[in-house]
């Protein structure tokens, strides 16, 4: 008994000894490990910072005629990047009233000015959402040792939204001119002084309502096999040619297609996708069809700091296509009013206002519209479009009345019905749905109303689809199945009864 106790005691002692040793060794090794960690030496020079495009307003440098040392392209680009980053961190700082990133882009003395603003605004509950849309910098001076630069940035277009206690109190667009001194410190061009020299109100220069020619007979188009993914791997010019021939032969004169924002590469539009889009227009031209291009599909952010990226995206697409003979019109965004609830009506309309002006300025020749999902929203921003467009999936009996009242409301601009249609889905998810016969009757009646009232219209859509991506309508099978059967041609490729009424000829 005694020896057993002794052995027990011994083993307990040995085990506890081992545990203590293990803890000590573990502690020492983690301390050693901690002391061996630290900043990577390469980080001293900030060479590893990669440029992510988060703020890319339009920047147009005046020709270089600076005093001091001659400037080289590379340094100028570096100054530009750091200068724009300085604006970006400032916008983020004022939006959140935090100081992240300011250290990198403002010198020690200049930082204080931002910190003071943040301190005051925090106390007063003021936040600012802002972005600059255009910069016109001139390099005034570059020091002989390459460490100091002075620029004047004229006509900086700045959009601001001021909130007090989280309530929007002011929305303003301003044009200002600044003189800025920058110093090269730690590999960053940092702002040392910034002085506002002048201030003017922003004047809208885009002219709407000058190009109002509309197409009277059109259709919304997606290829049957690749709906909502028209420019993906399944892109096939032969299918497009075949479909466009069907559309043309049916007596229609225009199509409406969609350019998805993220899929096209956001601010950096993928060349491959853009070529496919151009090719689509080329094929449309062969069949004498006009194309309405709907931008910003599947985009729903609208936040102010996203604006410069959105503009770059739009600019790339528009400048590529604006001289194309098949281009009919720009639809800025499909059914933006559906985002009113989640993003705020004010936020969305401000974005639309900015984008319509921008698109109009980039391409003044082609008409521009916004594809509202219903007639109630159609009057919003009616002065910012060349023709008004709305979608109609409601009771056919109120269309005529809806249209005439809208016409009365907006007498000066054409009003286009850019989506209408009926699903012929009747199945387990919707046993009392419309049949193909109902669909045909609907289109027949629609064509009657359209002809009678001379409504420029585009129906939804050429094909019944087999597969619909979940991003479009969600996963719910009754919605999905319903969405699949809006076409004039069924899943097997045969014309449905409604095909007879695809056009009013």
């Amino acid at each position, binding site marked *: 008994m005694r020896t057993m106790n002794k052995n027990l005691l011994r083993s307990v002692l040995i085990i506890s000894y081992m545990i203590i040793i293990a803890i000590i060794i573990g502690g020492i090794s983690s301390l050693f490990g901690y002391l061996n960690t630290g900043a990577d030496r390469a980080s001293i020079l900030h060479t590893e910072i990669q440029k992510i495009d988060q703020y890319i307003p339009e920047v147009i440098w005046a020709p270089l005629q600076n*005093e*001091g040392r001659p400037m080289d392209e590379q340094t100028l680009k570096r100054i530009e990047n750091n200068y724009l980053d300085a604006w970006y961190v*400032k916008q983020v700082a*004022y939006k959140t009233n935090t100081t992240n990133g300011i250290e990198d882009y403002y010198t020690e*003395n200049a930082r*204080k*000015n*931002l910190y*003071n*603003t*943040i*301190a*005051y*605004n925090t106390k*007063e509950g*003021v936040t*600012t959402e*802002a972005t600059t849309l255009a910069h016109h910098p001139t390099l*005034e*001076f570059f*020091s*002989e*040792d390459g*460490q*100091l630069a*002075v620029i*004047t940035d004229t006509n900086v277009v700045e959009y*601001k939204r*001021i909130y*007090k206690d989280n309530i929007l*109190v*002011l929305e*303003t667009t*301003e044009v*200002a001119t*600044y*003189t800025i*001194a920058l*110093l090269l410190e730690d590999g960053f061009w940092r702002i*040392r*002084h*910034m*002085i*506002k*020299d*002048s*201030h003017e109100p922003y004047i809208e220069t885009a002219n709407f309502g000058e190009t109002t020619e509309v197409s009277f007979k059109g259709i919304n188009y997606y290829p049957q096999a690749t709906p909502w993914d028209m420019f993906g791997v399944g892109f096939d010019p032969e299918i497009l040619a075949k479909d466009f021939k069907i559309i043309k032969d049916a007596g229609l004169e225009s199509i409406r297609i969609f350019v998805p924002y993220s899929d096209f590469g956001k601010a950096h539009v993928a060349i491959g996708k853009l070529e496919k889009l151009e090719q689509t227009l080329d094929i449309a031209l062969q069949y004498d069809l006009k194309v309405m291009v709907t931008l910003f599909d599947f985009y729903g952010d609208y936040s102010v700091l996203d604006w410069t990226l959105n503009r770059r995206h739009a600019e790339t697409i528009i400048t590529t296509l604006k001289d194309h003979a098949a281009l009919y019109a720009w639809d800025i965004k499909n059914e933006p009013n559906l985002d009113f609830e989640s993003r705020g009506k004010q936020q969305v309309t401000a974005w639309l206002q900015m984008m319509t002006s921008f698109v109009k300025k980039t391409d003044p020749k082609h008409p521009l519209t916004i594809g509202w999902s219903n007639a109630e929203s159609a009057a919003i921003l009616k002065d910012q479009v060349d023709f008004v467009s709305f979608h109609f999936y409601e009771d056919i009996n109120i269309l005529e009345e809806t249209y005439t009242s809208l016409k009365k409301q907006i007498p000066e601009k054409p009003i286009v019905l850019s989506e209408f249609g009926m699903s012929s889905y009747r199945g387990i998810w919707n046993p009392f749905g419309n049949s193909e016969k109902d669909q045909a009757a609907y289109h027949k009646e629609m064509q009657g109303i359209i002809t009678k009232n001379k409504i420029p219209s585009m129906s939804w859509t050429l094909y019944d689809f087999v597969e619909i991506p979940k991003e479009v309508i969600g996963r719910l099978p009754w919605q999905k199945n319903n969405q699949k059967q809006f076409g004039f041609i069924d899943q097997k490729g045969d014309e449905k009864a409604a095909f007879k009424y695809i056009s009013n000829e």
Partner: protein
Amino acid sequence: MKYKKIHILICIGILISTVTIGQHKNQGDRITLVTTQTEFEVGSTVLLQFSSSDTELPLLYCSNSYGSTVITPVLEDLGLYYEIPEFITNKKGIVHWKLIGHESTLGMFTMHPQERVTSMETYIGPPTIEAGAIDYTMLVVIPTDALDNPMPENTSVMVNHRFLETQKRDEVVTNKIIAYKNITSETKSGRLFISSECLETNSKEYTVDVLPAIPTDFTISVDRPHEYADGNQITSLYTSILRDQYGNEVSDGTFVTFFITNKEGNILKTSGTTVQGIATATMIHPDQEEAWSIKAYVQGMAESNRMTIAYQQVIKDVEIAFAKANREIKVGPLKSFMNQMIPDGFHVVLEIYKGDTLLNTETKTSKGGYVSFMLKEEMYISGTYTIKIKTAGIEKSFKNIKL
């Protein structure tokens, strides 16, 4: 004609009256600005006063060079008062304001810097320049007031600079925040002292070194203890004082390389750096008669003349003795120029051939004027060998030596 004049007068009258009525209407707005001052000095209190007919308290949006905010008013008997916060009134530039909810009531005022300079932020570079009246350094000054605001345009800045005996004072003016002055070097090297002054505030002293320009061609000289090729003494090579084209001694540490070409066309290389314009390099004496041709270069900039020096042979003949069944070879005595024993360390080379094949080369250095080689049995089994001894350019060959 008269009739027409009256018409015109009536028209003008109507125009004037409409304008006055228009102005009257503006004044009739509920909230109007009372403050008339639109120019302020930074650091002063800016109070915007508005006359108001009711108790509504609209916020004032306000934006300056660095940021924006909204200000809550104070309502007093005489109207609404908005005190512009310090972070705005402390900074130079245009301040734009707008009454929220009365967006047509808007305006601007300007903050001007104080008329006193408290800091002369100075940037000078490059910190070293070359003599010769071509290269220059640039002084950039940002005079700022107590609240870190740059001075207005065209503020005079005096730039003082002294170089050797000459002291100059130039005036420059601020343009777009900064004032700058290029200061060109003179033909002399030395130190440039620079300072600046703005509105009676002086900067501290800054210095820029004016370094000599690149050296011009130079000459070289040689110094040696004797002219004999004893393989022991050291020959020193010197440059003349290296100077730039303006006669300035080049900076200490200028690297000079000496290239020595010997009789056989091989190149020896030695180098040194300048101290007070002179570079020194050394080379050990050859161990046989030689003629060296020497030329020095400051690479890519300047070169010297070519000079030749000769070394005389010291060892005329070598005695070689075989002992211990030819397995010990004793070379010596090796005698120098006064028949003294050559200093230790003189090279002697032994080559052993079997027939025409070289078996081994052994190199030894002398000690006390002698060198001895042992040919070990383990390495060289018994037989006949050819043995060659080479030293001081002398070669002796012994054929059919039996070991």
